């Protein structure tokens, strides 16, 4: 059984994104979920599958709060920032198997007001190896672990910090057009170059935000999607990929290749489209460099050519491949990429704040846990 065109995004929802709240992650997650369910034209009790993002609400919370009488499917996809898009694959596999019809993906977090994201890695079991062998030497946070990948890319291919800046500037420009983005003041290359160094070569404006809020998506069986409120956004191809040495970047044969490189060819083949068919891309952007690397691993350019690819407004609205049209994790909010799925859906519906004209086909990626990748290609 192929998962091609088995499922569709039928509803999306977000809370107001914030930097500062006294609300609980559960409250934010349930609010976003109710909005997504309403957007789909469904009732909360219609949800028969849930895949909540890790470390937040559990299946029981949805049964309890929504009065779901017969929850048929629950799962988690523990891949860090790749989880949300990997959950699309999980949801459609369950739908295709006939287990359920409407699967709710959701996240709620107080990444700003609660436990800060930057140091949370220390408590995560998938990082046992680096916890024992790298953290005692001071290699603790994702920014440090990924900086080593970025440095290697720069040394091998001549990639520059100003090219990273192009990504930060473009993403902020998109956020400035989005009423629900938390960082809306435009920035320049020079602003990026003068922002403080976090872990060389990554500067402050290379790093994503820590945010409070919630986001949710409803994935429905294709044959149930047609009669709902919006035109369904059909998932044409979907895949996840795990890099070599997934638990320790240090030991990875090629520091500049991510798990997405394994997933992308599968998703493109399933979708039956090529790169020139993609009108808009929402690419997981925990750090600017990770966007650049994924554009290579997606196949939009060769390995080592990502720096050139992102220059001169190429990934901005109006450029050859608009990327992160909502402002991403860098400037909208860090919702672990659930907001990227929301945005791709809005682009393909034609209702985005920074709309790519007549966008028909787009893709969304996830990236997390030191290199796990996920991708979904969708059409209107």
């Amino acid at each position: 059984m192929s998962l091609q065109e088995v499922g569709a995004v039928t509803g999306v929802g977000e809370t107001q994104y914030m930097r500062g709240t006294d609300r609980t992650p559960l409250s934010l997650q349930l609010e976003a979920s109710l909005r997504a369910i309403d957007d789909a034209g469904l009732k909360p009790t219609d949800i028969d599958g849930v895949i909540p993002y890790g470390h937040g609400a559990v299946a029981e919370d949805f049964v309890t709060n929504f009065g779901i009488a017969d929850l048929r499917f629950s799962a988690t996809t523990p891949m860090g920032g790749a989880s949300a898009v990997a959950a699309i694959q999980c949801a459609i596999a369950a739908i295709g198997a006939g287990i359920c019809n409407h699967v709710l993906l959701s996240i709620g977090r107080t990444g700003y007001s609660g436990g800060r994201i930057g140091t949370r890695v220390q408590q995560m079991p998938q990082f046992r190896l680096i916890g024992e062998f790298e953290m005692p030497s001071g290699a603790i946070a994702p920014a440090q672990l990924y900086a080593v990948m970025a440095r290697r890319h720069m040394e091998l291919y001549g990639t520059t910090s100003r090219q990273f800046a192009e990504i930060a500037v473009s993403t902020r420009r998109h956020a400035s057009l989005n009423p629900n983005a938390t960082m809306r003041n435009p920035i320049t290359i020079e602003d990026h170059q003068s922002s403080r160094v976090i872990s060389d070569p990554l500067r402050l404006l290379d790093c994503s935000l820590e945010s409070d809020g919630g986001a949710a998506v409803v994935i429905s069986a294709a044959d149930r999607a047609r009669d709902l409120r919006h035109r369904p956004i059909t998932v044409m191809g979907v895949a996840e990929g795990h890099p070599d040495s997934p638990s320790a970047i240090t030991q990875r044969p090629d520091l500049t290749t991510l798990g997405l490189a394994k997933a992308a060819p599968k998703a493109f083949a399933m979708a039956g489209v090529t790169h020139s068919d993609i009108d808009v891309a929402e690419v997981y952007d925990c750090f600017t460099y990770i966007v650049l690397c994924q554009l290579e691993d997606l196949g939009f350019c060769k390995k080592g050519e990502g720096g050139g690819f992102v220059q001169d407004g190429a990934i901005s609205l109006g450029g050859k491949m608009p990327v992160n049209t909502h402002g991403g994790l860098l400037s909208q909010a860090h919702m672990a990429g659930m907001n990227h799925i929301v945005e791709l859906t809005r682009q393909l519906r034609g209702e985005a704040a920074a709309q790519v004209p007549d966008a028909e086909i787009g893709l969304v990626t996830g990236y997390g846990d030191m290199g796990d990748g996920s991708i979904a290609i969708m059409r209107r």
Partner: protein
Amino acid sequence: MSDYTKLTPQPTPDTQPYWDGLNAHVLRLQRCADCAKVRHYPRPVCDACFSMRVEWIDASGRGRVHSWTTTHHPFHPGFRPDLPYTLLTVDLEEGVRMNAQLRNLDPADLRVGLPVRVDFEPATEGLTLPVFVPDR
């Protein structure tokens, strides 16, 4: 030394020989006792032949710089006094990599392929950490 506030490892029976080696100022690596593939970080199964038979070898401690980062932001209060500090990822002669802080070199002089060797720094009671110094 209860005033040590940095993160400390919690060795397991699978990894204890590595930490014992550092305390003896020897870099020990796991080697598969069946197919002789060297692996790091220490773990129970050889990914080449799936053997669980393990032996430990004394590594040369010599290697070459693969990549690096210099950290300026205090991600953990225990490391704040060290800022900025440079973390090297090094290709060891035995074919695996390791990660440790740089000593005795200006980070501006780092380049891929630079020869380095491991040295040993007492951190706190019962814990010695590896560092890298230029191998001139």
